[in-house]
């Protein structure tokens, strides 16, 4: 297609968009809503993935010690862990270090922590796994052995948290895919309806164009571009709104969620995801146009 023909097709497409404003405004709004939902779920998923990744970085068995545990008992626990071939490294975390880490992760709880008067956090021993993907059974056996040692209050395996967050992410992805997919399908249908009405409104012109020797491509390209422009613009606006939500969410709602902010938060979309949102919008618009053209020209 020559530059002149492309320019003509774009000009005609923009002309179409300028004519039936209400029809196009409705299609545009539905497209934005659809891709906004898809974008928000994508952003939520990004956040959950980041959380799961940061937890998975140091997959460890955490042994919480009783406040009354003697230094010898502490050493026995550390030694037992160190002897296991599953364990890569062992680190002792003093109650003061645990408090410092807690306040770093949850600064909004500082007042509550200070009001307690004394540090309620116990000393612990963190035993990092050699292989983060180690099957759970031998780890649990080791945990049971350690739990039986004197001075041990509790033993936890933090990979379970990572697994729970991953499961939450999968659930969020499935819900996002369902709602986003459904809305995108609706937006394709709405765009298709708007463009179909446009085509029918220009029926006389299309008949004349056919009779004076216009090719199918010449007649159809402005309608295809119309859907493409509408969809890509809808995707771009949705991307802008998602970016806005990512920045505004922590300011307005994030604090009120407290510790849950870590889970119900929005992480920025990657460049590929942003482009995907715009391309997805364009594709939805294009599919809507194709469906409309197919229906009208078949009949």
């Amino acid at each position, binding site marked *: 297609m*020559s530059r*002149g*023909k492309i320019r*003509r097709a774009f000009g005609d497409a923009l002309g179409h968009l300028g004519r039936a404003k209400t029809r196009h405004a409705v299609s545009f709004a539905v497209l934005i809503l659809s891709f906004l939902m898809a974008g928000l779920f994508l952003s939520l998923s990004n956040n959950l993935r980041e959380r799961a990744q940061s937890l998975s970085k140091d997959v460890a068995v955490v042994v919480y010690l009783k406040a009354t545990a003697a230094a010898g008992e502490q050493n026995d626990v550390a030694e037992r862990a160190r002897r296991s071939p599953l364990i890569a490294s062992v680190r002792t975390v003093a109650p003061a270090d645990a408090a410092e880490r807690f306040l770093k992760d949850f600064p909004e709880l500082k007042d509550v922590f200070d009001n307690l008067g004394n540090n309620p956090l116990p000393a612990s021993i963190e035993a990092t796994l050699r292989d983060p993907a180690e099957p759970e059974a031998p780890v649990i056996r080791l945990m049971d052995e350690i739990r039986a040692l004197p001075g041990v209050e509790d033993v936890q395996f933090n990979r379970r948290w990572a697994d729970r967050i991953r499961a939450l992410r999968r659930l969020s992805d499935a819900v996002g895919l369902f709602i986003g997919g459904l809305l995108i399908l609706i937006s394709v249908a709405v765009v298709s309806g708007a463009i179909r009405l446009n085509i029918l409104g220009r029926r*006389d*012109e299309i*008949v*004349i*164009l*056919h*009779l*004076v*020797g*216009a*090719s*199918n491509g*010449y007649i159809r390209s402005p309608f295809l571009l119309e859907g493409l422009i509408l969809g890509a613009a809808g995707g771009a606006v949705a991307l802008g709104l998602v970016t806005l939500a990512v920045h505004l969410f922590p300011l307005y709602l994030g604090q009120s969620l407290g510790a849950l902010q870590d889970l119900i938060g929005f992480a920025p979309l990657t460049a590929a995801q942003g482009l995907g949102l715009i391309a997805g919008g364009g594709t939805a618009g294009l599919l809507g146009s194709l469906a409309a053209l197919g229906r009208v020209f078949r009949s």
Partner: protein
Amino acid sequence: MIEFRRVWKQYQKPAWALSDVSFTIADGEMCFITGPSGSGKSTILRLITRECLPTDGQILVGGTDIRRIPASKIYLLRRAMGVVFQEFRLLPERRVFDNVSVPLRVLGMPAKDIKRKVFIALRMVDLHHRIWNTPAELSYGEQQRVAIARAVVNNPRLLLADEPTGNLDPDLAAEIMSLFREINRQGTTVVICTHDREIIRRFAGRVLPLREGRTRDREAS
């Protein structure tokens, strides 16, 4: 230019729109296809423009069997012809210039050439002073002249007209027919479908009478 060889056309059973129609229209000829409503005149034009295909028989346009033209290439056949309709088929919200320039824009012609050719076509139909008007601002006769300008603006080898004077009074009809005669003198093959006997009597040319889908060729005096 046009050859019908034993053409049959049926839209719906059991009636035949055309029954065993054969005729030839030579290059540069002016031919009237006449007959009462429903005699098959418009069907002949629709077959020539390949808006539909014959049920049986062969149609050659410019030596090409139109059945053999793939659907995706029909536009090339239509670029070689201009068509004028009884109801003008102008785009009401577009100006005269835009209406006449449609076939040239379809060809992707540069804007400068389009302006020149549209002006020449409109001058031929004596409407160059109405170039920026919309069809609604023109009389019926003027609208039909715009339609003729649109049909000839890309110098087609063949001009087809379906009842071009059906909506016009006798004086305007004669004016339009003179235009067709002039276009024909310049070398374009002109095929006019009409049931107006007066037009045929006044403008000598070949007459192809149709009755119930059958032809009986004769020369008009």
